């Protein structure tokens, strides 16, 4: 029975962890309801949107509470006369296009990723970042682009079972493709970002030669892989495959590898080595009404304090390298933005994906299902 409930928790990702403690699900949902109601009210009156009220759009769930505590509250402390509403309904590409094209822009700040910023920016869907107000020296150069600036880092990392091979564990993608040395089921996400890079690294391509991605080479590697692997659609499904022993090694999002390690009491673990790191980022829809406050808010979110806090509450990796100085060794061990961990990883090729994501996804799916 408890296993069944655990599984539901896994699937829906309602498990909220802070310092190893698991929040009771009911309290957490209650908090979501409380926090989620206000933004709905704000969305109903777009005409009211002005410089004093910003609408921040993210993907809901844990992110609402986390971003409120780490970013919105400190910002409001600095500017007590302003307001920020968090809308957790998700700034998907189609919704951004629809909103900007309709001319009724009610959002100000959107939580997406850098390669989407590079894709939508040139289409005229986004405002250019105002780097006279945003201090881009707070982030690494690859996390500040014309239409977006990083707000946290996540990574696709090599995740493995620590007991399957008598003490030996895989440390590189080459090991993952070594079916003799490491027999067992593999798990990858059925999405190109991270999965293609891993294949190329396994084939011996060095970091600096990964982009532009040689699709044929990467897909040939996955054609060899696929009979040994499951390709999950939903990340929670992948996490669950590791958890229940169905998968023994493969690729998982770092924010899922951490709870996985906790749940399995260390049976599953991950390495930053050859991980692929990605920048989530702030984007601003073209025609947003928030004005200067938007850039001041974005700038305030880059401060190390809030960045460090979001790692503790949500597992988001600080995009500001300074944040790791505020974190102890235990927290930095799970921090993809920690300089030591970050250096082991390949920064994901946002420019390549901005152009090729759609084709790459289709070609990967075709290769896997042929």
């Amino acid at each position, binding site marked *: 029975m408890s296993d069944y409930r655990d*599984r539901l928790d896994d699937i829906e990702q309602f498990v909220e962890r802070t310092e190893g403690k698991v929040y009771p699900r009911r309290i957490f949902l209650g908090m979501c309801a409380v926090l989620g109601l206000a933004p709905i009210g704000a969305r109903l009156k777009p005409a009211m949107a002005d410089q004093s009220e910003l609408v921040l759009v993210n993907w809901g769930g844990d992110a609402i509470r986390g971003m409120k505590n780490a970013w919105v509250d400190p910002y409001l402390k600095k500017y007590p006369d302003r307001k920020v509403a968090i809308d957790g309904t998700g700034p998907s*590409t*189609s919704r951004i296009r629809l909103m900007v094209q309709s001319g009724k822009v009610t959002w100000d700040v959107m939580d997406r990723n850098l390669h989407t910023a590079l894709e939508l920016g040139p289409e005229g869907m986004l405002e250019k970042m105002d780097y006279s107000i945003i201090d881009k020296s707070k982030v690494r150069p690859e996390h500040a682009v014309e239409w977006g600036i990083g707000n946290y880092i996540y990574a696709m990392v090599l995740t493995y079972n620590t007991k399957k091979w008598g003490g030996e564990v895989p440390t590189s993608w080459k090991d993952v493709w070594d079916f003799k040395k490491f027999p067992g*089921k593999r798990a990858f996400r*059925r999405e190109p970002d991270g999965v293609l890079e891993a294949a190329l690294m396994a084939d011996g391509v060095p970091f600096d030669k990964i982009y532009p991605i040689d699709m044929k080479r990467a897909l040939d590697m996955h054609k060899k892989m*696929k009979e040994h*692997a*499951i*390709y*999950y*659609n939903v990340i929670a*499904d992948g996490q669950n495959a590791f958890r*229940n*022993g*169905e998968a023994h090694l493969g690729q998982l999002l770092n924010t899922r590898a951490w709870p996985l390690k906790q749940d399995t009491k260390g049976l599953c673990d991950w390495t930053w080595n050859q991980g692929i790191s990605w920048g989530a980022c702030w984007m601003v829809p073209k025609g947003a009404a928030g004005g200067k406050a938007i850039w001041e808010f974005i700038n305030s979110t880059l401060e190390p304090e809030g960045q460090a806090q979001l790692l503790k509450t949500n597992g988001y990796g600080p995009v500001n390298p300074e944040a790791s100085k505020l974190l102890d060794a235990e927290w930095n061990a799970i921090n993809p933005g920690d300089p030591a961990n970050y250096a082991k990883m390949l920064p994901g090729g946002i420019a390549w994906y901005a152009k090729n994501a*759609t084709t790459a*996804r*289709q070609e990967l*799916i*075709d290769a*896997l*299902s*042929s």
Partner: protein
Amino acid sequence: MLSLAERRPTGRTAYWLIMLPAVAMLLLIYLVPLADVLLTSVTDPKPGFGNYAMLFTSSSVQRALLTTLRIAAITTAVALLLGYLVAYAMRAASSRTQRFMLFCVLLPFWISVLVRSFAWLTLLRGSGPVNNALMAMGLIDEPLALVRNETGVLIGMIHVMLPYAILTLYANMRGIDIGLVAAARSLGASRLQAFRMVFLPLTRPGLIGAGTLVFILSLGFYVTPALLGGGKVLMIAEYVAVQINDTLRWGLGTMLATTLMIAVLGALWALSRVVDVKRLFGA
């Protein structure tokens, strides 16, 4: 017995009026969006039949179609075979046993396909109870790959489709006078002969009906292949979802949806030429 409507012809209009809200709602929430789907398939990304040409030119589309047809055909064949056996046993059982069997057949209908798929994953995965039992008995050394591949998809789909096959076949078999088999036996036919020459031909409409029904429903499966296929078994419904949600090629997605719908309507039309569809589904 004459129906109420036949006794009082004026009542007929009233019945139509009663149906009106439902019909209007169907028109609004079903036909209008459907028309939009049709329209998108010939206008996006540019007007014309470019999307439909991909049926003949794109190996990716063709592969998904072939996978879908293959899986639907195997599912239909196995579901018919298994369903026939169950329906036959039900037909021959006492009426109390029949009711109990019917209950067992209907039971899975109340469980969502999603839950059933996860149940199969738990049962059939490498370290699941089925593989563990087989290994404990020494029948196999390595766990069998029963899920996260095409086998898994077939197992899951046949499980979902079996009640449809059983119920359709059972409805058909109930209309057959079992005395005919007894008569054949009394005239010297062996058990097998009586079945093959008398009973089997009489169940032909049931077989055709159940086969068509299962095949049509199998064409549109989404959740089962997505979960049990391990990301490697791409059927048309999921292919459409990928086009609509991820690659945003709505023209291609709607074209495939339209093609699927035309195929289904075509199959139903063909079916109606062979058997009385209304009677088959108990209408």
